[in-house]
């Protein structure tokens, strides 16, 4: 089978997969319906300050698995829903940023700088249209790069990297993530080490489950969902509740001023022509940033905005950036949206999650089974069908369908979501907490799991208070088992060579880069990191 056959099979897997309903003889595929529902939910969540795409993904996952079960048929509908949330939340974040000066997601902060002044001028609808156009363009561009690059990278990794090189590459990726996320390499390494340590509790090859303190509770290890959701979601809920508790700001939702629409609110071809250079430049910036594991969309938005501002200053056009320039919204939204597709490049080519959304896609794949994101997916077998590759192309089809939704109904739905900014955060967060704990219980069916989640939530809360990013923890926790297994195999394959990480020039280069990344990050002051 050639690669075109696989592309076609991937498309068919989406369009001829499980059917939701048949209407007037027309079959509506389940996967497409799930992408649509996820996309609309994502916009709703992104438009709500205090909620984020990963939160919705975390809560939806157990419900989706209950609905679709653990069969390979479940993979595409579940992925489709999660991809829909990821994309919807990306454009939804701009809504409160523009209408109420409150970013729905952290990466939409720069959107407030020009979006809100436009709203005050009575150009809110136009600002939303600019945000939607730029976001959809950046997102689509990023997906195209993903679809082209990920399979090639994966083939290269599989063909040229042996076990020692793969181990060294995993170590390099983890060091890179620890060094670039947050404001400090030391804190990144602490987060990484804690994540690895937790991953190794109750596991190992011996009969005795290591680090279990002789207890049955720890002997099974920590369920993935408790650690990931605890540190990422519950920790964030605790931090936000503490902030509101101490500032005494409970009960107040986002307050925006009512501004009467003035002037032409449509987006004309001339506007698009003026915005395109900013969108294009930011889309490239966001895609490059997104392809590197661990660097978030906030940095992409900052860099995109800065590059756009420099260009705008040269042209001398009015209004300037920060005073309600549509180009400012375009530069920010194109950059932060183009991160989402490219973030899946390390997932599909290396098996390394680059951001929180990718973590939940890997979690879904792990839970359902039948698809192991990583270079082994991309095996173009000629004699028999490789089902994982079909799923990968099905995933790409879901992404392109989500883009189609984004271009067609996304803008109108996004513009109708302004009311979500008025939902009080101090009411929303306790609801999210109970929802998260309940979703973990229905997966694990033991109260211990809830206590683990709360424990990890407190850890995540303290980490945030100490300026330690929780993302290296989560990524290390997910990759910990893989790192150890690869190292064991590499050690055995090299005949017990203690220096197996330096057994080839490529592995040595990866290890050298690991040291270089840490040393350079130590020397370089960081700004604007998420």
């Amino acid at each position, binding site marked *: 089978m050639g690669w075109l056959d696989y592309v076609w099979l991937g498309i068919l897997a989406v369009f001829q997969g499980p059917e939701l309903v048949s209407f007037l003889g027309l079959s509506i595929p389940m996967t497409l319906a799930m992408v649509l529902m996820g996309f609309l939910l994502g916009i709703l969540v992104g438009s709500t300050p205090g909620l984020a795409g990963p939160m919705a993904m975390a809560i939806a996952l157990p419900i989706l698995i*209950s609905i679709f079960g653990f069969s390979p048929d479940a993979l595409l509908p579940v992925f489709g829903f999660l991809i829909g949330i990821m994309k919807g939340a990306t454009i939804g974040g701009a809504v409160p940023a523009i209408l109420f000066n409150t970013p729905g997601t952290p990466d939409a902060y720069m959107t407030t700088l020009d979006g809100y002044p436009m709203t005050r001028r009575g150009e809110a609808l136009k600002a939303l249209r600019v945000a939607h156009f730029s976001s959809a363009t950046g997102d689509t561009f990023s997906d195209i790069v993903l679809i082209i690059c990920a399979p090639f990278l994966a083939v290269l990794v599989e063909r040229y990297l042996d076990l020692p090189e793969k181990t060294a590459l995993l170590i390099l990726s983890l060091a890179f993530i*620890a060094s670039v996320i947050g*404001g*400090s*390499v*030391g*804190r990144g*390494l*602490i*987060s*990484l*080490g*804690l994540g*690895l*340590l937790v991953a*190794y509790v109750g596991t*190992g*090859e*011996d*009969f*005795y489950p*290591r*680090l279990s303190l*002789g207890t049955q509770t720890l002997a099974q290890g920590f369920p993935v969902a408790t650690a990931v959701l605890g540190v990422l979601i519950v920790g964030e809920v*605790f931090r936000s*509740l*503490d902030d*509101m*508790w*101490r500032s*005494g700001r*409970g009960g107040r939702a986002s307050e925006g001023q009512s501004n009467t629409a003035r002037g032409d609110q449509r987006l004309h071809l001339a506007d698009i022509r003026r915005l395109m250079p900013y969108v294009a430049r930011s889309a490239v910036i966001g895609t490059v940033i997104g392809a590197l594991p661990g660097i978030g969309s906030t940095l992409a938005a900052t860099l995109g905005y800065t590059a756009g501002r420099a260009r705008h200053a040269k042209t001398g056009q009015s209004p300037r950036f920060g005073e309600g320039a549509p180009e400012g919204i375009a530069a920010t939204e194109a950059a932060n949206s183009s991160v989402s597709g490219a973030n899946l490049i390390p997932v599909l080519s290396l098996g390394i999650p680059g951001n929180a959304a990718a973590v939940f896609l890997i979690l879904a794949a792990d839970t359902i089974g039948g698809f192991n994101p990583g270079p082994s997916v991309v095996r173009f077998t000629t004699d028999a069908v490789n089902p994982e590759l079909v799923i990968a192309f099905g995933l790409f089809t879901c992404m392109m369908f989500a883009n189609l939704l984004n271009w067609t109904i996304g803008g109108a739905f996004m513009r109708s979501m302004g009311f979500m900014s008025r939902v009080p955060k*101090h*009411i929303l967060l*306790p*609801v999210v*907490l*109970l*929802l998260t704990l*309940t979703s973990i*219980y229905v997966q*694990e*069916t*033991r109260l211990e799991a*809830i*206590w683990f989640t*709360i424990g990890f939530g*407190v850890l995540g809360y*303290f980490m945030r*208070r*100490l*300026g330690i990013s929780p993302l290296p923890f989560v990524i290390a926790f997910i990759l*910990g088992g893989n*790192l*150890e297994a690869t*190292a*064991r195999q590499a*050690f055995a394959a090299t005949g*017990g060579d203690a220096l197996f990480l330096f057994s080839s020039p490529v592995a040595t280069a990866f290890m050298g880069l690991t040291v270089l990344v840490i040393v350079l990050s*130590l020397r370089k002051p960081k700004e604007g990191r998420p």
Partner: protein
Amino acid sequence: MRLPDRGTLALGLTMLILALVIGFAWVPMDSSTGLVEKVRRQVSIGDGLAPTLAAVFIGLGGLLVAFFERRPEETPRITSGNLLFTAILLLLLALSLALMRWSGPALAGLLTEEGYRLLRDTAPWKYLGFLTGGTVLVTGLVALVERRLTLRAILIGLATVVVLIVLYDLPFDDLLLPPNGDV
């Protein structure tokens, strides 16, 4: 070398000590194979190596934070206010989970002869724990932030629980709401 502020130093040194305890006490005492093991003259990686590597990362991070990252203006810390909030939060969560776990069995023990275990798949018994515990959790947190208990907070707690029951329990026979998997 300029020393960092006390908070940063404390974080770094705590992590360093934690790493030493993990690497030299916890891992050797709580894993049955060491860093490497030899079985039938074949050397392989033992269960102790990976957690020791994790301890090395924690220790290295602590060392860097304590002695090489000297940016006092960028050093967030845990305050007594944060600890007080954590204590209140944990108390509230413990109360909610205790109610969730025990209110159903307690009521069933008082009002019926067969006990909760036989009733845990029967409405309204199966909802009792989740209803009381979940409502207290949501209402308590809303009241904590608002610094007063209002009828609105109670209604929000109740509504949340009802929506979750509708979401998780009514459509799925195989899903168990807390605490029905434990009792």
